[in-house]
């Protein structure tokens, strides 16, 4: 009568503490990566373009910045255009606006970007690609 109960208790005691051993492997460390918010992304690229020193650096930054599933914020665009001015490359400045046109979802959003950055364009004398090469067809 007593014996089976005793063996069960002993077995339970000798069994390794299951929960303590297994639980660490169940935590997914991959989920611990912090998600970069849009504001952080913008801040990162604004500082990148402010510190970019040559054309290679600017174009590399643009490639990376436009490779995400988002349209860079106007602050980033402004910093990028100013970086293009700093490295004296007009074509890259025009190309940035062409890039926005490619990235936005609707034409009205592109118009919003143009309106937002109108001051900057007039200040630097940037002509858009569609103004340089109007569609003939």
């Amino acid at each position, binding site marked *: 009568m007593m014996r089976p109960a005793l063996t069960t208790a002993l077995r339970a005691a000798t069994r390794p503490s299951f929960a303590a051993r297994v639980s660490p492997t169940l935590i997914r460390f991959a989920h611990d990566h912090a998600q970069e918010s849009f504001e952080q992304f913008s801040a990162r690229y604004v500082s990148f373009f402010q510190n970019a020193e040559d054309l290679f650096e600017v*174009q590399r930054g643009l490639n990376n910045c436009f490779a995400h599933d988002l349209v860079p914020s106007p602050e980033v665009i402004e910093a990028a255009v100013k970086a293009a*001015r700093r490295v004296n490359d007009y074509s890259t400045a025009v190309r940035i606006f062409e890039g926005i046109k490619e990235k936005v979802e609707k034409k009205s959003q592109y118009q919003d970007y143009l309106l937002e950055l109108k001051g900057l364009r007039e200040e630097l004398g940037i002509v858009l690609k569609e103004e340089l*090469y109007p569609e003939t067809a």
Partner: protein
Amino acid sequence: MQAAFRLARHSASLRASTSIRCLATTANPAHVASAPATSASSSTAKPSIIPLSNVEAQWEKMSTEEKATVYEQLEEAMKKDWKLLSIDEKKAAYYVAFGPHGPRAPVSKPGDNFKVFAGTLALMGVAGILFYAIRLASPPPPRTINKEWEEAANQRALEQKMNPITGIASEGYSGKGFVTHK
């Protein structure tokens, strides 16, 4: 790959006075500018000022030295206030850097779609003609392929009690037997 480009640029910059670090993917004429360094060392005759007014039309025909000259001119021009640039200079700067030439040349010319469409139609026509020509030249179908023959075959199958469990001679059979014609 990137390292190879950098190495190439580095060695070129030793020879050419103008060296710009830029992405190889943008086909920036910095590569063009440094490319002719091997021949430029032998021939010192450099093309003088090239008008930037119609670079788009001339670009394909220009020699490498001329392209380098245009690029250097543009480089100088772009250092000024951009508001002072003429529209021709702006267009030339954009065209040289990102215009449809070299790796950015359009894959198909206008009118190519029509050629593909017409070619496909022509091939389909040839196939149709071939089909009917073969049908004309071939003998008529065998005498067993007609409704009468197939019904006769059904009768014969029933006489012989062919396939009595699941087939034509079985109880309550509702299939068509050997008849394949409507």
